[in-house]
C-alpha cells in the first residue's frame, strides 16, 4: 500500500512579472501530473469595448491595454485599419513608425533585462537589491530605458500611451533637429547596449531546449519590428490577412485566455525573442550581429533562459536602427496620409517586444467598428510555456517546494509574460500527493 500525503504550497505572487495569472502544479508519487498556467486576459474586454467606436479610435484605445508596449498595440491596430481602408503608410512615415517602435523595444527590453530577469541569474530577490549592491549596473539599465523613452517622447508625444500616433501616420512629425538632438544619447546607449550583451552572456543558464514551432514576422532585408509577413520554423509563410486561418484559438477549462495552436499541428508554437532571432538572425544590423556572435548565440536560440541574451542583442539592434533612421530622416511633407472609411475587414501584425501581436477590425461603410479581434503574444505562448514548465519541473521534482517555486518563477520570467497584456499578480500553487 502506498502511503499518500498531500501538501499544498501557495506563494503570495510571482513578482517581477508584468500582468496577472497563476500557476498550479500537481505532483504525485514522484511524477508531475498537471501543469496549469492560468492567465487573466484583457483583450476580450477591449474587443467588446471597441465595437461601435470609430475606425480612428483603436490606436488610442488599444494603447491602454499595456503600459509597457502601447506602440505595439497602436501599430498593429493602425495596420489593420489602414489595410481595411485600402490605405498604405510607407516611405518616411513608415520609417518614423519603425523608429517609434525601436524606442519601445529599447525601453521594454531594458526594463525586463535589468529589473525583472537579471536578478534571477545573480541571486537577488529583485531589482532593488541588485541596485543596492551594483548601482552602476542598474544605472546603465535605466540610462538605456531613458534612451528608449526619449525616442517615444520625441515622436509619440510621451512615453506612456503615446498621443501623437494616428491612423494614416501621426498628428505631427518632428523636425529633423528634434531627432538629431537624440543622437548623443543614442550613441551612449549603443555602448551601454553592447555592454549589456557582454554582461548577460556571462550568466549561468539552466539547461532547457524547446522544440516548439517558432513563429515570427519576416521583413527580408531587415530585422522585423513594425511590420512584415509571418514565417515559421516549420516552413509556413502567410500574411496577416490569413492569420486566423493559421492560428487557431481554443478555450481551455482552466483559463480565461484562449490557447493558440497552428492549424494542422497538434504541437505548440512559440513567438517572441527566441522565434524572432532564430528566424531572422541573418537580418540583424552589423553591431547587433557582432554582439550576438561574441555572446556565442549562433544562428538560433532555443533555450528560454538565454532569451535574456537575445533581448540584449535586440536592444543593440533597436538602438542601431534608431541611429540609422535618425541619420536618414527627412521630415515628411505631411504628417499623415488620408484614410477614408469603407465597409471592409483589415488585419495587422507587428512584433511587440514579447512577440507577434495580431489585430483584426471589421468596419461598416461609415467606419464604425462592428467586430474586433486582438491576439497578443502572451496568450499565444501560454500553451508552449505550460509544456516547457512540464519538462522543466519534471527534472526538478525532488526540490523542496520553496526552491521549486523560485525556479518556476525564474522560468516563467524568461518568457517575459505580459500577463497586463495578460497582470498584476501571478500566484503559484504546488500540490503534492
Amino acid at each position: 500500500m502506498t502511503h499518500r500525503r498531500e501538501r499544498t504550497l501557495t506563494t503570495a505572487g510571482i513578482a517581477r512579472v508584468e500582468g496577472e495569472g497563476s500557476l498550479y502544479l500537481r505532483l504525485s508519487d514522484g511524477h508531475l501530473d498537471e501543469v496549469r498556467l492560468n492567465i487573466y486576459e484583457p483583450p476580450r474586454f477591449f474587443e467588446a469595448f471597441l465595437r461601435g467606436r470609430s475606425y480612428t479610435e483603436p490606436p488610442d484605445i488599444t494603447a491602454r491595454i499595456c503600459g509597457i508596449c502601447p506602440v505595439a498595440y497602436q501599430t498593429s491596430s493602425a495596420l489593420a485599419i489602414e489595410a481595411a481602408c485600402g490605405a498604405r503608410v510607407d516611405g518616411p512615415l513608415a520609417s518614423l513608425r519603425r523608429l517609434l517602435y525601436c524606442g519601445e523595444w529599447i525601453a521594454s527590453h531594458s526594463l525586463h533585462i535589468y529589473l525583472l530577469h537579471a536578478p534571477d541569474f545573480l541571486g537577488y530577490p529583485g531589482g532593488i537589491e541588485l541596485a543596492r549592491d551594483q548601482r552602476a549596473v542598474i544605472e546603465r539599465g535605466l540610462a538605456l530605458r531613458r534612451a528608449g523613452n526619449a525616442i517615444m517622447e520625441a515622436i509619440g508625444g510621451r512615453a506612456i500611451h503615446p498621443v501623437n500616433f494616428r491612423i494614416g501616420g501621426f498628428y505631427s512629425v518632428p523636425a529633423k533637429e528634434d531627432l538629431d538632438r537624440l543622437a548623443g544619447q543614442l550613441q551612449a546607449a549603443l555602448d551601454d547596449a553592447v555592454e549589456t550583451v557582454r554582461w548577460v552572456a556571462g550568466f549561468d543558464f539552466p539547461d532547457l531546449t524547446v522544440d516548439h514551432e517558432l513563429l515570427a514576422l519576416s521583413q527580408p532585408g531587415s530585422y522585423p519590428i513594425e511590420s512584415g509577413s509571418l514565417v515559421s520554423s516549420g516552413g509556413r509563410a502567410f500574411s496577416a490577412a490569413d492569420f486566423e486561418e493559421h492560428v487557431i484559438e481554443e478555450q481551455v477549462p482552466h483559463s480565461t485566455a484562449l490557447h493558440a495552436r497552428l492549424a494542422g499541428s497538434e504541437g505548440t508554437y512559440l513567438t517572441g525573442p527566441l522565434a524572432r532571432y532564430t528566424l531572422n538572425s541573418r537580418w540583424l544590423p552589423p553591431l547587433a550581429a557582432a554582439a550576438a556572435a561574441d555572446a556565442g548565440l549562433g544562428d538560433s536560440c532555443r533555450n528560454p533562459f538565454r532569451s535574456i541574451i537575445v533581448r540584449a542583442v535586440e536592444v543593440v539592434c533597436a538602438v542601431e536602427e534608431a541611429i540609422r533612421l535618425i541619420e536618414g530622416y527627412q521630415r515628411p511633407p505631411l504628417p499623415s496620409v488620408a484614410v477614408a472609411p469603407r465597409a471592409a475587414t483589415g488585419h495587422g501584425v507587428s512584433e511587440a517586444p514579447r512577440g507577434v501581436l495580431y489585430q483584426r477590425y471589421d468596419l461598416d461603410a461609415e467606419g464604425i467598428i462592428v467586430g474586433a479581434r486582438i491576439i497578443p503574444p502572451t496568450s499565444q505562448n501560454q500553451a508552449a510555456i505550460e509544456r516547457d514548465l512540464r519538462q522543466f519541473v519534471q527534472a526538478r521534482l525532488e526540490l523542496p517546494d520553496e526552491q521549486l517555486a523560485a525556479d518556476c518563477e525564474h522560468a516563467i520570467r524568461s518568457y517575459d509574460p505580459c500577463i497586463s497584456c495578460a497582470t498584476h499578480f501571478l500566484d503559484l500553487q504546488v500540490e503534492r500527493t
Partner: protein
Amino acid sequence: MVIGVGTEFRCDDGAGPAVIQRLRGTVPASVELLYSDGEPTRLMETWMDAGAAVVVDAASGGDAPPGTLHRVVVGPGQPGSAAAPASSHGLGLSTAIELSRVLSRLPGLLILHGVQGEVFGYGRTFSPAVAAAIDELTARVRADVLSLSAS
C-alpha cells in the same frame, strides 16, 4: 506635482486617474497633474526632481475594508513598503519608492494617498465603496496640494 496611478479600464484601479480629473481647475495651475501606469522607473524619473510629490493610487491587500482611505508620508529613511498600503500594481509604487530610495531619487517630500479597492477586473465602474470614497479622497489630496502650495 500630483500623480494618479492606475488605469481607468480596471474598475477600482482607476481611482488615481479619477482624482486627477477631479482636481483639474481646483488647484493652482503651477501644480502638475500627471497620470502613471505605475511602472516604477517612470514613476521614479517623474518625481525625482520634484520638491514635493503627491501620489494617488488604489490599494489592495491587507485587512482594511473597501473604501478605506490611507495617507502615508514617505521619508528618505523609512522603508516605504512597510508603511504604505500595498499598491494594486505588482511592479508598482512600493518598487518605485524603494528603487528611488536606493538610487537617491526620492522627491523632497512624498505623500501617498490610497483608497482600498475591492474590484480590479476589467470594466469602467468603481465598486460602491470606492465610488462613495472618491470625493473625500479628492478633498484630502486637494488639501495636501493647497497646503504644500502655500508653504
